[in-house]
Each structure stands twice: as C-alpha cells, then as structure tokens.
C-alpha cells in the first residue's frame, strides 16, 4: 500500500485548536436535528474530498473504534 492509500491517523490538522473551535461554532445555536444534518453533510463533503474508497473504508473502521484495524 503506498502512502496515498493510507488513512492518516497521526496529527495532521494545522492549528488543531482553531479547527476544533470552528467545528463547535458551526454547531452553535443549532437544534439536535439541525446538528445531525450538518454533521451528515460534513461527512459527505469530506468523503468526496478524499474520494479513495480504500481510505474511506479505513476511515469508517477507524471511526467505529475497531481496535486492531
């Protein structure tokens, strides 16, 4: 597997605290259904950016917290 087919699971976000604050503020003032919808749209936007099915499969497994994947 070359580097590009590998899901990055080491720190990779530039200024992580700022990103996290952006994420929280995107949800500010939203109801639970609105937040769920925003998260769903965000997942789809990010998934499209990644595109690679192998990486997406690894991401799904990583998000499920399946140890040993």
């Amino acid at each position, binding site marked *: 597997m070359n580097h590009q087919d590998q899901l990055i699971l080491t720190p990779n976000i530039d200024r992580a605290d700022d990103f996290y604050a952006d994420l929280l503020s995107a949800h500010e003032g939203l109801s639970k*259904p609105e937040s*769920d*919808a925003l998260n*769903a*749209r965000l*997942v*789809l*936007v990010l998934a*499209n950016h990644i595109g690679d099915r192998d990486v997406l499969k690894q991401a799904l497994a990583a998000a499920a917290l399946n140890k040993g994947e």
Partner: protein
Amino acid sequence: MNKIFEIPLYSYQRSDDQDASSPVRHPVVVIGAGPVGLAAAIDLAQQGVGVVVLDDNDKVSFGSRAICFSKRTLEIADRLGLGDPLVDKGVQWNLGKVFFDDRKVYEFNLLPEEGHKRPAFINLQQYYFEEYMVQRVRDLQEQGAPIEIRGRNKVSAIGTHDDHVTLEIDTPEGSYNLEADWLIACDGAGSPTRQMLGLDFVGRVFEDNFLIADVIMEADFPTERWFWFDPPFNKGQSALLHKQPDGVWRIDLQLGWDIDKEREKRPENVIPRIREMLGEDVKFELEWVSIYTFQCRRMEKFRHGRVIFAGDAAHQVSPFGARGANSGLQDTDNLCWKLKLVLDGQADESLLDTYDVERIHGADENILNSSRSTDFITPKSEMSRVLRDAVLDLSEQYEFARPLVNSGRLSLPCTYEGSPLNSADALNGPERSAPGSPCPDAPLGDGYLLPQLADRFTLLTINADAPDSFEEAGITVHRLALSTQDDKTRALRERYLGDNDSAVYLIRPDQHVAARRPSFDDSQFRAALRRAIGKEHSA
C-alpha cells in the same frame, strides 16, 4: 373509445389438440403471453422450434405497467424482428428533474453515448410492447413458423417427468391435456406454475405498494422525467412522472407497505394528489389507476428439471430502475439459444444449468441495485434518513453529491463475469467487452455492428486473419471480418481493441462475448466454442 387493452388480441379458438385421442407433445410450451413469454416464443419459433403459448386471458396487459425499455431490450427486440415499431412509437427523453420536499434540487441531461443503433431507453406502455409482439407472432405464422398463442387456456395441473412435462388445461369448452419436452413458465409475479410445483422464493424480502396512474394531459407538458423525494403531496414517500406515447403520462406514487388498497385507489383520493403534483391549473383526465405491490426476491434456482422459470415468475425487484421486463427479456435471450442446442442434441441438458448460473447472477445484481435504491428512497432508520436528506440538500448546490442521489439506477445489461461458458480473457482489451459482456454496439458502414452478430455463433475479427468459417462440435461459426480502416468514429477501436492492433472475438448467439484473443488460434477458438456450449470444462 376502446382502449387497446380492452380488445381481445388472441381470442379463444378450439385447437385440434383438444380433440386428439391422446395428449399431443410439443417441443416447448410457454405459459404466459406477457413480454417475457412472447419473447421466448418468438425467439424459439425464429429458430424453427415448435412452441405453444398458453395464457389464461386473451388480451394484452391492462394499463401501462412496464413502461421503460432499455437499450439492451431494444437490441434483443431487433433480434426478434420488432425493434423498429417499438422505437418508432416509444418516447425518448434526456432531461430529468429531481425534487426534494417542495423544491427542485437539480436537473440532469443523460447525454447517452454516441454510436449505438438504439437509444439508452424508450418509454412505451407495456400494452403496445405486447401488441407488437403479437403482431410479430402473426407475421411468423404467415411465414409458416411453428408458433401458436392459445387464449383463455388456463393451466390447472402440471406433471413433471424426467424427459417431459404433462399439462392439464382448462378452456371455455372444457379441459384437455398436452405434453411438452420443455416448459417455460413466464406467468408473472404470482406464477401459478411456481405454486403448482410447490416452489417458493429465497433471499431478502421487502414489500412496497405503488399507486400507478395513467393520466392524459390537455396542455403541453415537457418530455422529462420528474422524480420527487418526500414531496408535500406524498409525505415520506416518493413520486415519479414519466411521459408515454399518445399524450399519456405515467404517475407512480409510492404508498408504503401497510395501506388500504381499495381506499387509495378511489378517484376522490387519487385526483387531489395528482392535482397537487402537477399544479392547480393543469387539466388532466385519469385513464387508469392500479395498485402495484412488489416484493424484492428470487427463486433459489430457475431451472427445475424440464420446467424453466423466466421473468417475474423467477425474480422480482422494485420498479426503481426498470429492471422487471428488461431483465425478463435478458432471461429469454440467454435461455433460447441454449434450449435450441439441447433440443437439437448439439449440447447436453447441463448447458441449461448455465442459464441458472448466468441469470441468477443477473437477478442478484438487479436485486442489489433495487434494494439500494429502495434504501435511499425509503430510509429504514433515523440516521439513514438524515444521510439521505444530507445528500439531497447538498445536491442542490454541489455537483459532487448528485451521483449519490439514487432514484433507481437504470437497467444496464448484465455481464456474465465468471460464467463457466467464458474462456479466460487473453486480450488486454477494454473491460466493457471482456468475456461474459454483452457486445457494445458500434457504427458499421451505413449501419451498426449488433445486427451482424445475431442468432448464431460469430467469429468477429478486427484487423486479423482467420478462416471464413469453421465447424466444431456440429456448430458452424461464421466470421465477420472488420477493419479499423472503416472505423470513422473510432468506436470499434475504443470498444473492442483498446491499445491492441488487432483482436478476435467469439460471440454467442445472444451477443455476449465468449472468448477474445489478439489473433486467431485454431485450437484455442475450437476449445472456446466447446466451452461456450458446455462441452469443455477446463478453463
């Protein structure tokens, strides 16, 4: 005005078989004069196989029913001699609109690939399809072909034997018995044949109901496909509007599975919904309303000794993606050349088991696609609804989300990947024409490739030498010699050669690729032919 589906097209007539002192044996009996049964009968009769079609009714199907016929179906129809009337009458469309809740989220143009004789699909009421088929049967009869349709002949009992089937048939003048070497059951979703043999379905089962209405509009309305997710007039469900010939529009309203069918069908309940769907000022007349219930599943196997199931009798899918009649015609396309070889003693009965292998593969592909469409259209959990709605909301602004919108993936022909009839791929060529694939069409001089490949085994050579014909296992294979010098559109190169300078293909009578190599090799192609008729089992 009498509608075509109200006029008997094959009235009951007494047959000599009813007065015979002992049951008359026919090579093939087909039960069901729908599109699938008639396709089987026409295919066999064209090959000189005697065939009798029995139907408990005497008319074409009531209402529009199947309306979307795919390119592959039209190509098969060409082989059956009825492609032109279908395409002349059918409606072609390219523009689709997708609605979500109360708004249009996007529209698309299908832009079908160039260089095919037939369009990606046409819309046509099933009753026209059947009418043209019955006309084709009449033409074949005039030419002396051994084909008959017997209306109001209802099969009431079936006896199965090692080498034939016995049938007890009720008619308006009492019952009689018939025998058949082979019985093809094309008697629809509720198949009485299946029930008489005590056979059932396996696999994932889900059920849904659709209100189907044919509507005649008084004003002009664009020739487009409109699909609604979760519209105000059908909350939580879907709706489809499609143009048919004669100014008839087809409306499909999904109803869910737990409904009161009689109540939903009443005009006072149907008309307000359609008015909300089309807009207050659109004048329309309701021609036909029906409730259609479907289940998504198939039989464990389609061949049971001398009884072979095809079409909805063997497998059922949701209407999303037009996979019912279209897959049924691929069934008979696959079956009839094999049955002819078996009847002629040129292949063993076991060749018919590959009908099971190949068409179960096809049915599973259709069930998978249809299940995925259903999961998108009718989300089964709260989160699947959240994700579905997210896709639709994004699709309004961003192109990337549109391929995820699933209102039915339109039926594409099945590739028989991994079939025992395929020889290993010996050409590093285009994937779309690998062994098992249906041959893609291409322009050829003033005409097209596919009509040149019909009804017999063909050796297709492109920039390659080969004998004009060869005989193997009692079958003569004729060569079709082509050159890329005449390939102005480069479609032949793109679809059959890829980066190769030359190629040789062995093509089955149903226009599927059996084998391909860069050049002709006598022993390899002889082996490939034996393999394609089930007589060579090593790969």
